[in-house]
C-alpha cells in the first residue's frame, strides 16, 4: 500500500490489525473446561514468550490480576469488554511498548494484535502477520483450503483478520453526518463504531473504521480498500472542518481557546467533559489555531484519563469526586509541561 502515510496522523489516531488463530482439533475457548483451558493457555503463552526472545513481554492472567488493572486495560483498548465476561484462563501477553500482543482464550484461542500510532496499517499488518507466522511454525494452527483460518464465529473465518483505523471526526459528528457515513461504509463491507464501543456516541469524537468481510479476499486487498476508504473519510472530515471554520472563524478559534482554558485551569473534571474538550483542543491544534500541546500529548491523555486508569495509576479507590480532582491535576500538569510561548 502506497497510500498509508503519516501525514494523516493528525486525523488518524492509531491503526490496529488483529489476527484470529486457533489450535487444530481442540475445542474453542467457550467449549473448554477449566483444565483444558489452562492447558491451552500454557501452551500458547509458552510458545509466544519463547518467540519473544530478549524482548520484554508481560504475561497477565486476566482472571487473577486486580479488577481495576483489568478495567484499565479495557480503557486502553488492549482487552475487549466482552473478554471480561466468560473468561477462563484468559491471558494478555503484551510487549512492553504495548504495540504487539496476543490475547489468549478470548473468543478464539489466539488473537494476535499489533497497534501503531497514526495511519500505518501496513506496518501493523506486517508485525502481526510475522508473529502469527512464527507461532504457526511451532503450534498446530487450524485451517482448511476451503475456508482459510478457522475461527469460533463464522464472521472471522478466512483471513481471521480485523484491521482498523481510529479516526478523530469532530466536524462530521457536529454536522450530524456519522449515521450517513456508517451507511456508506457498510455498503462496501466496512463498519464504523465509537471509540468506547457503546452505541453510536463516541467519547472524544474518536471512531474506529474496520473491515467486516474476512473471507474470500486476500489480506492485502482488504487492507488497501480500508486505506482508501479511510482516506476518503479523512478528506470529508477535513472539508467539514473547513466549512465550520469558514462559517465563523472567530467562533471556531474561541471554542478552541476556551477548551484549552478549562483544561489548564480546572480543579476537578469528569472523564466525559475532559474527552470532549480534548477533542476540541485536538481539532484546534490540527488546524493550526494553536501550536501547543503537541498531538502526542493529547493522544496520551485521551488514552490514560479513563476512570480505571486514573484510579489504577494513582492507587486510589475509583471514587468519583476524588478521581475528578486527580484527573484535572494530571491534565493541568501534562498541558503545562507541554506549553511553549504562543
Amino acid at each position, binding site marked *: 500500500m502506497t497510500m498509508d502515510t503519516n501525514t494523516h496522523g493528525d486525523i488518524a489516531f492509531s491503526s490496529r490489525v488483529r489476527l484470529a488463530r*486457533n*489450535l*487444530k*482439533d*481442540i*475445542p*474453542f475457548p*467457550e*467449549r473448554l473446561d477449566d483444565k483444558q483451558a489452562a492447558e491451552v493457555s500454557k501452551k500458547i503463552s509458552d510458545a509466544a514468550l519463547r518467540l519473544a526472545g530478549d524482548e520484554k513481554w508481560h504475561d497477565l492472567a486476566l482472571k487473577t490480576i486486580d479488577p481495576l488493572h483489568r478495567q484499565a486495560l479495557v480503557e486502553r483498548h488492549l482487552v475487549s469488554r466482552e473478554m471480561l465476561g466468560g473468561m477462563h484462563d484468559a491471558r494478555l501477553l503484551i510487549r512492553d511498548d504495548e504495540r504487539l500482543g496476543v490475547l489468549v482464550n478470548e473468543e478464539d484461542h489466539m488473537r494476535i494484535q499489533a497497534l501503531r500510532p497514526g495511519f500505518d496499517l501496513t506496518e501493523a499488518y506486517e508485525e502481526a502477520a510475522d508473529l502469527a507466522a512464527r507461532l504457526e511454525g511451532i503450534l498446530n494452527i*487450524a485451517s*482448511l*483450503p*476451503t*475456508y*482459510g483460518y*478457522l*475461527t*469460533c*464465529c*463464522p*464472521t472471522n*473465518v*478466512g483471513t481471521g483478520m480485523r484491521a482498523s483505523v481510529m479516526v478523530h471526526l469532530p466536524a462530521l459528528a457536529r454536522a450530524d453526518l456519522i449515521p450517513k457515513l456508517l451507511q456508506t461504509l457498510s455498503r462496501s*463491507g466496512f463498519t464504523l463504531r465509537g471509540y468506547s464501543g457503546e452505541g453510536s456516541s463516541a467519547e472524544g469524537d474518536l471512531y474506529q473504521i474496520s473491515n467486516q*468481510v*474476512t*473471507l*474470500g*479476499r*486476500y489480506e492485502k486487498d482488504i487492507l488497501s480498500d480500508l486505506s482508501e476508504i479511510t482516506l476518503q473519510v479523512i478528506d470529508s472530515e477535513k472539508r467539514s472542518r473547513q466549512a465550520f471554520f469558514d462559517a465563523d472563524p472567530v467562533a471556531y478559534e474561541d471554542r478552541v481557546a476556551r477548551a484549552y482554558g478549562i483544561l489548564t485551569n480546572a480543579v476537578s473534571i469528569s472523564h466525559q467533559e475532559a474527552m470532549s474538550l480534548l477533542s476540541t483542543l485536538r481539532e484546534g491544534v490540527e488546524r493550526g489555531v494553536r501550536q501547543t500541546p503537541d498531538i502526542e500529548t493529547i493522544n496520551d491523555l485521551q488514552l490514560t484519563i479513563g476512570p480505571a486508569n486514573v484510579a489504577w495509576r494513582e492507587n486510589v479507590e475509583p471514587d468519583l469526586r476524588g478521581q475528578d480532582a486527580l484527573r484535572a491535576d494530571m491534565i493541568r500538569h501534562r498541558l503545562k509541561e507541554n506549553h511553549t510561548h504562543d
Partner: protein
Amino acid sequence: MRCERCQQNTARLTVTLKTKDGTKTSHLCPMCALTLPTFYTPHTKAVRPDVSCSVCQMSLSEFRQGGRLGCSNCYEVFQLDLADVLNRVQGTDHHVRPLPESEKKAEPTDALRGLRQALKDAVEAEDYYLAATIRDEIREKEERN
C-alpha cells in the same frame, strides 16, 4: 479414529440413529456420512439422524441455534449448513485459493467424466461440501441418461 465405513478417512462425525431397538451410534467421515440415505441437507428442518462433532460434541441443532462453531473439526462436520451461513455473513462461502484444474470448465461431452474427476479432487482436498454438490450433479445426470 478411522471411519467405520471406509476404514480410511478420519471419523469426524458422530451420527446417532434412533431405531426400534434403541439408538445406534456410528463414527463416520463426512464423505461416508453423505452417502447415508437419511443424511440431512441444509434445508431439512427436522434432523433425523443426530449429527454431532466428534471433537467438541457440538450437535447440528446446537450449531443451527447459536451460529458459532465449537472447534476446527466442526467446519468439516457442518459444512452443508455452513455454506448458507457464510454466504449470508460474508457474501461468499469460499476462501480465496487457486482454482483446481477440474473446476475449470470441461467439454460438455466429457461432462460426466469431468464431474467424476472433480469429485475425486474435491474428496482429496477434503472439500466435502463441493463433493456433495458434485455427487448430486452426477446422480442427476446419470438418472437423465
